């Protein structure tokens, strides 16, 4: 019961603030609602007993990336941006893509009702107190079963970082 209330609270918050993110005219307000959406997603992670993902979401997205977003927003000239066209004229493409997405989601709901027990294996629910410690489990699976993807992702990030440094250095 409590779990459901918490889930719907955070899910509703995430959806509403995501909508507000794209509809607000003021770009700083949009950023604030994006932060709210990210925090609500973190709340859903917490409700699912994934503490590590919860805090990773907060540290990386809310504490890191969004701070840089706001930093950049404040550095660029806002007055010019407001006078420019705010939305690109790609209505028809956007409509097509969102219809396709809606069809996919609808298909998923329909097929989920038709074929019970298909898809991902669902294990028995375990009381929260008996769950294994979350961050240790994440670390174990990252460094054992998913070592290669983990290393590839870190190399990718390193390449991006070096690329950014090279581009920044070019000026002199």
């Amino acid at each position, binding site marked *: 019961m409590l779990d459901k209330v918490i889930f719907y609270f955070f899910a509703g918050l995430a959806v509403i603030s995501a909508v507000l993110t794209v509809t607000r005219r003021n770009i700083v307000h949009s950023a604030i609602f994006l932060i709210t959406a990210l925090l609500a997603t973190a709340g859903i992670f917490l409700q699912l007993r994934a503490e590590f993902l919860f*805090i990773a979401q907060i540290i990386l997205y809310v504490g890191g990336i969004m701070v840089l977003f706001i*930093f950049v927003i*404040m550095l660029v000239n806002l007055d010019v941006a407001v006078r420019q066209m705010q939305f690109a004229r790609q209505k028809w493409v956007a409509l097509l893509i969102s219809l396709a997405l809606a069809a996919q989601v609808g298909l998923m709901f329909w097929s989920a009702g038709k074929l019970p027990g298909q898809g991902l294996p669902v294990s028995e629910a375990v009381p929260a107190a008996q769950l294994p410690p979350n961050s240790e489990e994440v670390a174990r699976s990252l460094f054992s079963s998913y070592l290669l993807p983990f290393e590839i992702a870190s190399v990718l990030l390193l390449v991006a970082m070096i690329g950014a440094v090279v581009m920044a250095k070019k000026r002199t």
Partner: protein
Amino acid sequence: MQAVIQATLDFLKACWQPLLCGLVIVAVLPLIAGYIVLVERKLMADMQARLGPMRVGPHGLLQPIADAVKLLIKEDIIPQDADKLVFWLAPVLSVGAALLSLAGLAIGPAFQVAKGINIGILFVVGVSAMGIYGIVLGGWASNSHYSLMGALRSSAQLVSYETAAGLALVTGLLFAGTLNITSIVEAQYDQGIWFGLLAPVAFFTYLVASIAETNRAPFDLPEAESELVAGYMTEYSGFRWALYFLGEYTNMIVVASVATTLFLGGWLRPFPRTHWLDFLDFLPALFMIVVGAYCVVRVPKQPAKVQSLFMLAVAGLCFAVALVLLAPVVLPMFQRSLAPVVKPFYDGILGSFWFLLKVSAYIYFFMWLRFTIPRYRFDQLMRLGWHFLIPLSIINVLVIGIAMIVGSYLHLAGGWLLLTTIPASVIALIVALFILSIEQKSAPPEQGRAASDSYAG
């Protein structure tokens, strides 16, 4: 209706302890912050051969309360073109994040709001980092150039120094092997040594980075009064300004607590496993008695009757607290059966005493630094962060990790690990200084740098 009441009662029965702890923190913290400000002013006065606040109460002891009342009843001004909602939200965010991060900290073995959370120290660091939105949004919403400049500087500073602080924490966590705050302190008990001694370079990095993160002098550029009036809080007044102040001082307590937990042994007393030092357990009571006696001695020197009465009251309070502190030791002497009942209570009080003592020492160091070192220039601050502290902390994580592996091959444990970690720390320091000297040789002349830095102020 019945079900709702029943559910509420069940919830209260299950969660009364964290709720009580949270209530105590929220209620007491503003008072503590106010008295930290008083201590800071007194200390500054002492270092500058002045007396400091002396008017309100004996030796200005009631000054924080008078200040709080003044701030509460001041007129609340919002600039005309300010973004009202964000202007209102920003100080709340600043205080909220700081208070929420206190929930993860353990003040003593029993006093912790979120008990035994698995992500412990990450929760504290992550949530307190969100306080930056209070600063940035407040600076932006004020619609003032000084505020915006202060906010930009602050976010640049925080982003730069958070990396160094995070890597320093990683080094400490290597020894602990867990994120849980209770387990970190217990690991220091088991190994018999503070992690700050095992990884002195990491402790130093965290110390510098935490000063920069809390916007304290010598890194208080976001509010450099000679350049930016008061930085991001230029347009704030009255209660909102007080909220910012509360957030700032709470943040100081948070970083000091994180450093204490990870590097200075948390709530353990010095040498917790050396039994001939057990008399240290009486130190809190002794401390209270000494303070009370000092107050009694000073009574005849007070200029007014009210002030001497106040002094006597403070002395009486100190003696009462000392009695309460001694009770768990004295009571079991008369009645043996009481011993197991009062033991956790006694441990809790002792633990909080040592924890708060270490936190106070850390904050004292902050203040000392503030009155000793002049303010950095913004490009100097950035160079210190990116060219020295971040390389130093990255290299330190690497070499400390290698030192731990070498130590495990040599079967070193506890204090003997110092044999490998100290040389490793020295190597890290030398390499970082070498990198810094290369950077300085290749860097363009000083004037060119300062001019090209657009937000140097």
